[in-house]
């Protein structure tokens, strides 16, 4: 198939950036979206032009590294599908495809389509863990966990930290991401001890990193490649309110 590509090119964080148009002639329907971009890079190199920079690694939808806004939608048009798992058979011959980086103030562009997602890591560093020093664990079956509880934790833990939810949100909110992490840990018995501390710390870091509040637009859920549901945000709100109340009466350590 033939494709017209409008791609965001930006030399550095300080560069203003612009769209550039490219044409690709011989794209196989069976190739993945990123393989299509590989082909473009090869074409650019053959022409002596600078290849395109974009993030990717596992190419199987699990590492969360790929991050493109395709025709205005983070991770493109297919439901619950990361960019790397999107295949060209979903596009039409002769189609024009617009490709941009994540667009969100807290995640600035480093180059071309690559953005800086380190604020998401910092949210985790502030509280997204269950303290279990190596060697200190009790026997794994000592604490039975209802299957349902385990399943809820697993649903939340499926988040791959890609940041599409932030990119899709008109407020650049990181609520879905944070809520998924908090729900994963807060719902397990092992995570109860640090529950309030964790919730307060992560929300406060999230605010400090410049992510704005959630106004229930729901775009995040629509683009999330792992089907993280909005209920998680409701759960975070409940946990946060309860932690705040406790903190008011007796500061949470």
């Amino acid at each position: 198939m033939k494709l017209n590509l409008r791609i965001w090119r930006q030399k550095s964080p300080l560069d203003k950036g612009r769209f550039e148009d490219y044409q690709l002639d011989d794209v196989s329907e069976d190739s993945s979206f990123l393989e299509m971009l590989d082909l473009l890079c090869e074409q650019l190199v053959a022409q002596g032009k600078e290849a395109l920079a974009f993030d990717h690694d596992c190419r199987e939808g699990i590492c969360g590294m790929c991050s493109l806004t395709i025709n205005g939608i983070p991770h493109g048009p297919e439901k619950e599908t990361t960019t790397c798992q999107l295949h060209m058979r979903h596009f039409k011959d002769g189609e024009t495809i617009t490709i941009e980086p994540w667009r969100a103030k807290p995640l600035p562009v480093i180059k071309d389509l690559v953005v800086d997602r380190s604020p998401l890591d910092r949210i985790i560093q502030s509280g997204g863990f269950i303290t279990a020093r190596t060697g200190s664990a009790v026997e794994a079956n000592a604490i039975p966990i209802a299957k349902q509880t385990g399943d809820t934790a697993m649903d939340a833990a499926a988040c791959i930290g890609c940041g599409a939810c932030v990119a899709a949100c008109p407020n650049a909110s990181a609520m879905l991401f944070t809520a998924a992490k908090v729900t994963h840990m807060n719902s397990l018995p092992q995570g109860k001890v640090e529950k309030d501390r964790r919730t307060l710390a992560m929300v406060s870091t999230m605010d400090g990193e410049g992510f704005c509040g959630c106004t229930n637009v729901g775009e995040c859920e629509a683009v999330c490649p792992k089907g993280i549901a909005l209920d998680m945000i409701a759960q975070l709100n409940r946990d946060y309110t309860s932690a705040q109340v406790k903190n008011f009466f007796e500061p949470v350590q």
Partner: protein
Amino acid sequence: MKLDAKIPDGPLPEKWSSHKFKMKLVNPANRRKYSVIVVGSGLAGGAAAASLAEQGYNVSCFCYQDSPRRAHSIAAQGGINAAKNYQNDGDSIHRLFYDTVKGGDYRSREANVYRLAEVSTDIIDQCVAQGVPFAREYGGLLANRSFGGAQVSRTFYARGQTGQQLLLGAYSALSKQIGLGKVKMYNRHEMLDLVMVDGHAKGIVARNMTTGEVTRHAADCVVLATGGYGNAFFLSTNAQGCNVTAAYRAHKRGAGFANPCFTQIHPTCIPVHGENQSKLALMSESLRNDGRIWAPKDPATAAKIRAGELDPNTVPEDERDYYLERKYPSFGNLAPRDISSRAAKELCDAGHGVASTGLGVYLDFRDAIQRDGKKAIEERYGNLFEMYQRITGDDPYSTPMMIFPAVHYTMGGLWVDYNLESTIPGLFVGGEANFSDHGANRLGASALMQGLADGYFVLPYTVGNYLGEQGIASAGTVTTEHSAFAEVEDAVESRIEKLMSIGGTQSPRSFHKRLGKIIWDECGMARSREGLEGAIQQIQALRKEFWSDLRVTGDADGLNPELERAGRVADFMEFGELMCRDALMREESCGGHFRVEYQTDDGEALRNDADYTYVSVWEYQGDDTEPALHKEPLIYENVALATRSYK
């Protein structure tokens, strides 16, 4: 090069505990005076960095991705083994040890494998405490499944994302230490060389991939946990960035490289679709529990299917060759990875292959669906079927799935002793990057176990022991001002300049593809003297072409994926030759290493225990000199060597 495996004395079950007791301890107040570099944030590196920081050491951790959570451990689907015997089906530490030694075709070190089996149970405890959401039964206890043909159910799993969940556990522990300031995390940094001072590993030189700056990092010792080198084949189930650079650079500085030809080809991957394919997708091995593997008996039928003239569903029963069931009646479709992969290749070579390229066989669920109903199959494999359909566009409920073997794991790696220390003092290696515990073939669900065993339960002890032996007076004495750092930095800078300035016509990717094809053809599933000798010459010629006709666009002083790939391919170009040399030297067939000259009358691998029961360890001797071979004899005191038979 002296190879002392430092295996502790005493009976097998007591070696590790008595060794731990004899180790030098570092007083808690002194630990903060030491610093440790950990390169890699996967299961092995992430777990080691977090645990060492918890103990009080200052840790610097490096990864090439934008976050430590993205290391390729994340992609593991199937599960992790542990000898918990929760299913009361006769599992034990000794059985896991025995299965691993046998599965590895008797080419691994007994003492290390035993320790692995021993700490496997602690891993599960540790992970559950961190909040890893393993699958559970309705009663609330942990669930298990049997995996990869094991006769006991010892595999723990978290939906199809065991790797991600285990890695998130290690990542959260690491993140806590980063937040506390005990670990300094260097994301988007690629280690490009090792720095040695007075014969000990004392630091690394890395490139900040965002700014292009070449940076120096000093420490009291260095841990490499940089994963496997499967991408030497270009196409593999590895992530795009997986590389041999860190390990190979250490090799060039004096670390012995062990068994480089031991690579694992996984039987159930989605076949190649075309010229622009960049990676191969693994379909979980669990599919073989219900799917039946076959190819048309008549090559003419296969040709019609390839041409799209025949629907595979219409091939009558007596024209299908269920070849694994035929050749290995007792294991059938669950025959081990190396055996299943080779059988598929043989059939395709003989013209029975399907898929447009002729490189594919069927994994058919028709009978299972008839037997158990579509709903039951959907419950078991729904997400895998979806993934298959997403990639291929075919619906496996109605048309049989196509599979073909693909490179998946590398058993070879830097040689390490019982302490996981390489032949360079102060350089430790964990996870897939070391030559590990898997001999010539790894069993399913054992790599995650080994990565976490190394990271949580071995390295934190043995690194501490090394630091204790060096003494507190040595702590922090080497800094980046030492002349060794300037020398290595210069070498790294000039190599980057060289790559940038060749000014040729061919891209790094195109060279990588060509290299991969040579290695796949001659050092893949079937190897021969003639083929390997030819491959070595072809690689040497390709390497010359690389250094005279490479084109790297862009600049070196910022983010440049082309430059990154060029550097990795340059190392694969040298390393690929080493793989072929090792395969050529080992005149026997064992595990994933199949030399066509050494097979039984019915085409099974023919091991040669009398001459090859050793680890081959290669010492770098210079760019234009052949590497020297050293041997670590493998001594089996607890397991009797036997022929693996799955008939």
